[in-house]
């Protein structure tokens, strides 16, 4: 029954011809959104003009997300860069009824359980923000500069596996992009192929 319902949903979704959404190119203005976070506050990209903003697409059930949270890798990055004044928004674009969709309470519980350090956890159940960014994976990462331009888009790191033991030997592209940006340099590797689970849109 459940599968049948899902299949129907899928067919409807596919036949309503979703607007093609390639990610906005690096160097262009980051699309704005206005969404509620898990604490009930409104979050927009524009309110953070003047600061670096990291967007991280999130799905707690995805093995690739678990790779980076289970190992503490993502929390460490969040902690390091929010301490340097970077705004970190985790965004959940899973549609209701699909994997990874969280209510505000569930999101807060997950944040406590995983000891996450992001600035805010943004809820995007109808996938509007996800689609406007062309977010395809969890985790799919964006770095936005103080002028509101995208300076990095792509994977979290260089090893596209769900295996936490690969983290130690991989290059963390987001860390490099932030370090280069904060040092006033241009990002050397500004666009990589994101990897992970697909974002569970409706």
């Amino acid at each position, binding site marked *: 029954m459940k*599968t049948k319902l*899902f*299949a129907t949903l*899928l067919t409807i*979704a*596919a036949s309503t011809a*979703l*607007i*093609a*959404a*390639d*990610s906005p*190119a*690096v160097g262009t203005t980051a699309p704005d959104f206005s969404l509620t976070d898990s604490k009930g506050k409104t979050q927009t990209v524009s309110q953070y003009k003047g600061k670096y903003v990291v967007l991280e697409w999130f799905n707690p*059930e*995805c*093995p*690739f997300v678990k790779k980076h949270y289970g190992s503490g890798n993502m929390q460490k990055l969040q902690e390091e860069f929010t301490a340097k004044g970077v705004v970190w928004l985790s965004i959940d*674009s899973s*549609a209701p009824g*699909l*994997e*990874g969709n969280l209510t505000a309470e569930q999101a807060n519980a997950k944040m406590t359980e995983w000891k996450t350090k992001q600035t805010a956890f943004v809820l995007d159940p109808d*996938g509007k923000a*996800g*689609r406007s960014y*062309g*977010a*395809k*994976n969890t985790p799919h990462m964006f770095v936005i500069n103080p002028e509101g331009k995208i300076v990095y888009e*792509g994977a979290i790191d260089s090893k*596209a*596996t*769900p*295996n936490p033991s690969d983290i130690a030997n991989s290059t963390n592209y987001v860390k490099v992009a932030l370090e280069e940006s904060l040092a006033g340099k241009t990002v050397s590797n*500004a*666009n*990589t*192929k994101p*990897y*992970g*689970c*697909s*974002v*569970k*849109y*409706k």
Partner: protein
Amino acid sequence: MTVRANVGGTFASRLFLVAALLVTMLCPARGQKYEGRELVQAKLLADVTAVVPGKPFTVGLLLHMVPNWHTYWKFPGDAGIPTEIKWKLPDGWKVGEIQWPIPLKLDEPGDIQIYGYHDEVLLLQEMTPPASLKDSTVQLAAEASWLVCEKICIPGNANLKLDLPVAAQSTASNEEIFSRYRRSLPQDWPAAGIARATWQRQATELRLTVESAALANYPAADFFPVPEANVVVGHPKVERGAGGQTIFQVPIETADKNLAALNGIVVFGQNANGPGRNAWALESTPVIASTAVLPGNLARFLLFGFIGGFILNLMPCVLPVISLKIFGFIQHAGQDRRRILRSGLAFVAGIFAWFIGLALLLIALKSAGREITWAFQFTNPYFVVLMSAVVLVFALNLFGVFEISLPQFANRGVLGWTAQEGDAGSFFQGVFATVLATPCTAPFLGTALGFAFTQSGWTILLMFLAIAAGMASPYLLLSAQPAWLRLVPKPGPWMLRVKQLMGFLLLATLLFLLAVLGAERGVEAIVWTSCFLLALSVACWMKGAFIVPTASSGSRFVSIGLMLLLVLGSAWYFIGGKFAAAKTVSAETQTQGGWQPFTPQLLENELKQGHAVFVDFTAAWCLTCKFNEANVLEAGAVREAFERHGITKIKADWTNADPAITKILKQFGRPGVPMYVLYPGNHAEPILFPELLTQNLILEKLETVSPNVAVK
């Protein structure tokens, strides 16, 4: 695994098969459980009942997915990761690349496109056991890991084993499933007559145009890209054009401006995504199987560069100029040591200046995205004309027709390499010797330069410095230790005769250059160049006869005017007009001695049919090539062996820098000609020969080609 009765097998091996079957059944593959269901069942299959030592066979990883779940293709698309197989094989075993059946293109909400497999897939790999296999049974073990997704994604893995008996012969096994999946593998790109593919880069988009009536007839066509790891591509779009054209547009999201082509497969059939589809594999390079550039550390390659530079001195094209320098040393023997050292250093500086200049030019061209190669300047006919003129002028100078003088040194008298050799003369001699050296890619230099051309600008520069140092080393030594010159004869009137003799050596070089021009532009080009050279000779004679210190300034003025008129006028008329109009010689007219002229299609077709092919990469200006051709490739024993083994002989003439040939040279990591490649047939890996051939070397390798596969 399915076991068929092996009639030829012994009782023991049959017993073993039963045991192996039991073991396989008792150790089921471990997948992953989700809501009580095993999502993926994995096992290994072989297409033979037994392993025959040295004889390749195919193994397959069979994945069974529960309905609606999928695993991924080698390029997963927007999400997911490809299935991986890590083999733990006994010593001496070789395993080929995974052969992936044509995947399904699956769309997920949010414009997410992935490439993968539903229900079942068999990933094929060729296994080659060692010929020396002695055991009675073998165990092939692999760890397979995959990501399986439906609404959610779950990674899984399994440690799998395949036990097989070893026997003198074997019969086919698992025929149905292997033949089913072999049919769903992409095929090699067809001959140019059936489908022609061209890539075009338009800003952030790569456009693949396939001209094929066969493809145009199918209602569904698509391109599944296989980009390199650092390339991000968008979703390809398909468009049907006029005249059997199908156009695929692939957005490129990464900033790499040099990316000009992608690997991938062109998929076509009655339906876009159902069974019964076919695919052609498109490699961004026309020839299969390229060998990688030899790995190695920089220091070793610099040493090769140094040795190669030293050997350049002995190359036939350099000898005339080098003899001039040695002559200079003879002349100065017994003179002031410091003077000898200075002249030697100036010569060495000339060598370095040329190599540094060449390195900088190559780096500039490389960063501009041009295909670069060694001796590329000789592929330009105007450069060859200029070289001919320079060689002739120097020869006339040696004959004593005129003396070279440079105005700013006029008070010091006559310069050049005659009675009083100046530093400037030595410097230009160094440059000249080196310019002539480049068309001979000496042994060692090929490997070293092949390595350098794939490296950064700094490495290229370092490499050229190493070559320059190698070439300059004997002169530096002789200049620093003139005592060693005591071994050579004392100066005397005999030197004038030797000088004239050297002039004839230069004339021989001139003949060679003219032959190069003839090969590039035909007989007409030789005639017009010779006319220009004749006018130039007259100008040189006028210089020697009338522009002398005793002549009045008026007659000198008139003479200079006439000389300039003669040189510029003949250059304008013969070179700018007649020579420029001479047509490039077409390659088709040059077929001789069973050699076919190279085209990418010819090579591709021959290889596709499993023929053994030998390709001679040559150029008219390459003396090493001519030497190899005359003494090895055209030698009786070698010709006979080529014939006996039924080898297709192809001559790839790089005289005019054919870009299709440049591409193949680069695939083999070689910067220039000569290059010799033997494709042993039946799609085996090509064999690359060293730059200097010997008959034995060729004959030995030819023995590896089994005659029965090569019969045409």
